[in-house]
């Protein structure tokens, strides 16, 4: 099956004066993340593209085919769209075995039972679940259920893959491991891929492009770095503004190039990802006294006002985004080119193992 790009303009009006108006384009082989807080209409976007909810106006196009266009009177039902979905909470059929769940799509498409089972077994092997064929969804762990859901969606060889919060039901350790394997499976999928998430780390690590969505509309679109460095709304600044820094951990120290960051966890070793919230970075005009072990001097490279708060970019050796109040900016006379001291408490740095 050939893979075309997704072009969607979705307008959905609900009676409770909620209006969704979203524009999306995803090329084959690219991953877009739809990043936004809960209750902003992200799952509605999934339903509309999957064909479970008709749009009120706009159009959905996949390659050359129009999937939904109310003005033209076109609506392709979900079962004919070839859109693979990993649903929030996975929605595995509880009365069917793991194997039958994966085979469900193929059998619905009239594939012969034995070849559907064979193909499904291969998919289960591919997601690392060989030997689990006979289990019921209720008997497998959250991480396994996620992989069954992924295999079930991929087994139908869809033209487009939608993942609705695929990692949010998992505990932190599983999430990190599965994020890596999800990245592999995503890169093996040739069509457009869309990841719905409220977790900026997930969006930035898995997506080529991020759509920030708030209250039913897209407020910013761009590459992950662009959103992170130049957030346009308060929400984007809050959630997407975290500094993500890759480094090598050993014994409570993380090497980031030449620079050393001290972290609270002394057991971690190997590649890690540091998550440093802009609030966690303290700014001083003189070398601070006292406890913080992470203290260094640098220079302000950029100052940006976000209402009553101010966002700063700082220079080498560890370029970071920091956030201070408007008063602090006045008091410290912060402007581009001003030399400053930064400090960072080890306990305020988030650390994740990173492949």
């Amino acid at each position: 099956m050939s893979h075309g790009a997704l072009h969607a303009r979705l307008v959905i009006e609900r009676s409770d004066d909620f209006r969704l108006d979203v524009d999306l384009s995803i090329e084959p082989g690219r991953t877009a993340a739809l990043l936004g807080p809960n209750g902003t209409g992200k799952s509605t976007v999934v339903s509309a593209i999957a064909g479970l909810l008709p749009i009120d106006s706009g159009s959905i196009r996949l390659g050359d085919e129009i999937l939904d266009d109310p003005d033209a009177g076109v609506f392709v039902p979900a079962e004919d769209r070839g859109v693979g979905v990993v649903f929030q909470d996975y929605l595995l059929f509880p009365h069917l075995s793991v194997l039958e769940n994966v085979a469900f799509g193929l059998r619905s498409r009239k594939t012969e039972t034995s070849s559907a089972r064979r193909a499904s077994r291969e998919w289960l092997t591919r997601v690392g679940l060989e030997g689990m064929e006979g289990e019921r969804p209720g008997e497998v762990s959250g991480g396994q259920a996620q992989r069954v859901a992924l295999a079930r969606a991929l087994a139908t060889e869809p033209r487009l893959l939608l993942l609705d919060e695929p990692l949010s039901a998992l505990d932190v350790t599983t999430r990190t491991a599965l994020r890596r394997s999800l990245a592999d499976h995503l890169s093996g999928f040739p069509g457009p891929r869309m990841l719905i998430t409220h977790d900026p780390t997930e969006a930035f690590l898995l997506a080529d492009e991020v759509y920030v969505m708030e209250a039913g509309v897209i407020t910013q679109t761009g590459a992950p770095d662009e959103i992170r460095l130049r957030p346009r709304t308060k929400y984007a600044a809050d959630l997407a503004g975290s500094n993500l820094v890759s480094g090598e951990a050993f014994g409570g120290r993380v090497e980031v190039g030449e620079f050393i960051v001290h972290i609270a966890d002394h057991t971690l070793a190997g590649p890690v990802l540091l998550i440093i919230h802009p609030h966690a970075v303290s700014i001083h005009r003189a070398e601070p006294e006292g406890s913080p072990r992470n203290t260094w001097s640098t220079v302000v490279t950029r100052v940006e006002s976000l209402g009553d708060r101010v966002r700063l970019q700082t220079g080498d050796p560890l370029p970071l985004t920091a956030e201070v109040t408007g008063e602090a900016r006045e008091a410290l006379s912060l402007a581009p080119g001003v030399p400053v001291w930064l400090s960072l408490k080890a306990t305020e740095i988030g650390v994740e193992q990173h492949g």
Partner: protein
Amino acid sequence: MILLGALGTALVAVPLIGLLWRAPWAELGSVITSRVVLDALRLSLISSLSATAIAFVLGIPVAWLLARVEFPGRHLVRGLVLLPLVLPPVVGGAALLFALGRRGLVGEPVYEATGLVLPFSTWGVVLASTFVAMPFLVITVEGALHNLDQRYEGAAASLGARRWTVLRRVTLPMVGPSLLAGLVLTWARAFGEFGATITFAGNLQGRTQTLPLAVFVALESDRGVAVAISLLMVVVSLIVLVALRERWWRVS
């Protein structure tokens, strides 16, 4: 509490013990294999199973409409369909007679067109049983459909399943336990049906005389026979209950 609980249990147990106490154990075999009883048993099984089958075919769509489709007057339709639950069966039988009798609203044109007479026929028994029993299926399945997370059906559709496949492979299996419970209740209600049947279908041995009607007749003539038939019905009901005990008792 313990005392009241014991009293409640006794309320159910004592009549059953009474049956056992009065049972004509010596002639039980010959009574049960007598022509009258065998006819009634056969008729009861046929009519209660037919009523259950009809309720399955018609009741599930009704339950689905009530649970899933918004239409004007839905509450009215629900009330109407569930009315036989609370309606005295005799009234139901009389209503059936006025509607489907040979001179009835629907019965007359049907009779003139096909020569089919429903009252006082085995079909009449099936119809009367379905009338009183189907609401049990509708109410249980509607509740289950209502509680079923519809996103599962969406997931099935996104995997390429057409409506019929979704119903057959996802919806019905997922409401399976409730559907089974509904079917058992429906069957039990049809099996024990008396009032609507005797009013609409009469009491003709071999044609419309089911086990409950046979018990009623025997009470007037031969009490031993009445007790024997009653025991037979207890046994048949117990067999069903025991066969389903896993499902029934797991609920608690």
